[in-house]
């Protein structure tokens, strides 16, 4: 049977099974658009909000809904509210194709907003950044190419940094970080899938990933945030990190397919 036809049939079925998950990318888009409308059309979201981890938990959420819904819920709930996995696996399908279609839908949902914002930011490529942390301020000027210090736009506010083509840089960085988180999540989900306490492991890890990076706001730690640190590393080795990320996505997914093929659901 034609593989693409099979893939496309499962993909469409997957969308019909989870019609509401399509709304999650809109929720992901909120942090991008709120500052835009709030501050007026000439101002872009600042670097700090763009680099925050606030959005990344959607990746985990979409991953468990799409890739392995049965591991995130109690067995009794699965019996009452079937996920469709058993139905699909008892149709005329190649087992890996089920995961391939699910993953394609997953990556589409994760990347649709970052890719859209990348194109949207091309309209005004320069980025104005207001950074209050002195160490982070110096690191931006030192490590981000095209960054120029300027005066504060309003009295009492931090001095602004203008980064030439900064919105595109951050937009690409965003796609890269979502890609990395997505492949890590996919591999993690299928790593723990056969484990007995997979549900507990999944949710403990999920909440740890959401809340631990935010702890710095409570602990008032000085210096660049985790997101900014990753961003500076990204800026320094863009080509290498992109190649690594793409390779990780392909190899990680192929590993998941092989595992899925051999696993009982």
């Amino acid at each position, binding site marked *: 049977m034609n593989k693409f036809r099979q893939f496309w*049939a499962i993909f*469409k079925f997957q969308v*019909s*099974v989870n019609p509401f998950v399509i709304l999650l990318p809109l929720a992901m888009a909120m942090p991008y658009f709120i500052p835009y409308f709030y501050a007026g059309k000439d101002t872009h979201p600042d670097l700090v909000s763009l680099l925050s981890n606030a959005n990344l938990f959607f990746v985990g959420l979409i991953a468990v809904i799409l890739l392995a819904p049965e591991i995130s819920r109690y067995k009794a709930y699965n019996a009452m*509210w079937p996920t469709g996995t058993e139905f699909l696996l008892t*149709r*005329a399908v190649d087992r890996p194709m089920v995961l391939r279609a699910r993953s394609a839908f997953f990556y589409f949902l994760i990347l649709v907003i970052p890719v859209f914002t990348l194109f949207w930011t091309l309209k005004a490529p320069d980025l104005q950044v207001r950074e209050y942390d002195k160490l982070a301020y110096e690191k931006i000027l030192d490590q981000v190419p095209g960054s120029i210090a300027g005066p504060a736009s309003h009295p009492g506010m931090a001095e602004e940094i203008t980064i030439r083509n900064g919105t595109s840089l951050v937009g690409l960085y965003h796609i890269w970080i979502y890609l990395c988180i997505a492949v890590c999540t996919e591999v993690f989900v299928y790593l723990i899938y056969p484990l007995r306490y997979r549900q507990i492991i999944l949710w403990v890890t999920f909440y740890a990933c959401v809340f631990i990076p935010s702890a710095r706001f409570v602990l008032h730690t000085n210096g660049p945030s985790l997101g900014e640190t990753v961003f500076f590393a990204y800026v320094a080795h863009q080509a290498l990190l992109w190649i690594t990320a793409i390779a990780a996505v392909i190899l990680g997914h192929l590993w998941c397919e092989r595992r899925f093929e051999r696993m009982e*659901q």
Partner: protein
Amino acid sequence: MMNDDEIPILAQNVRRAYDGPLVLRDFSLSVKKGSIYGFLGRNGSGKTTALRMLAGLIKPGSGEVRVLGFNPFTAGAAERQWLGYMSEKATIPPNTRLRSVLNLGRALYPTWDAALVDSLLAKYGLSPRRRFAALSQGQQRLVGFVAAIAPRPKVLLLDEPAANLDVVARREILDDVLALIRDCECTVLFSTHILSDVERVADHIGILSNGSLRVSESLDSLKDSIRQVHCFGFKNGIPREDLPGSFRTVRTREDLTVTLRTDATLTPESLAQHWSCQCESRALGLEDIFVELSLNQGILP
């Protein structure tokens, strides 16, 4: 030795456990092409596990499972298109529209019979626009049945197909199964607790007990061989000891009723001669046979 074409469903010495005791132990089954095999057993006897294994959802712990000559767990789309399966529980997500399920089937199966689907949906009064959540449990089972039968499979596995169905729908499903057999020599294995259904459609039956198949033979042969024999007019008094191999013996002051499996050497006539009495034998219905076997032959859950 028969080949895969003649024995499309085969399991040999299969063992399987779920985090504990064995659910299937040395389970062996062979179903001949074109037969309708009724799979019986008490609750928890391992019927669903066996069917899920044959459908390729779970792997055997040890032993071998073959459907149409292939391993159902590792089979690809090309092989699986000849295997139809209907689960005992709802497996289609509630938000899904019936239309999406039909579109999926049409895209995946080259042999998808759209005319059959239309006629079955019309017969069962199901609209493709409806979501699963809006269907009753019985209607959901009907959709599961339509999705299993529409590809015109060579092997059809039905796990409790008649559960939650009203009498009319149940009969209609059984008639459709029979029609499918007539049209394409499909082999059907179905589990059920409704023994009247088995009597209506099955030509072979298997009784699963404690994870292994205790009985597997044609329905006619089983009904012919298991008899209830009423013995009376004993010349030497009623025998105190049970007949070896008998299922159940009920004694009154003057007569004795024994349920047993007859064969060439053990017949009502030979029994009358052995005990010096008169004997009348009667055939039992499948339900009586199942109960007799269950209560007195160690047929455990």
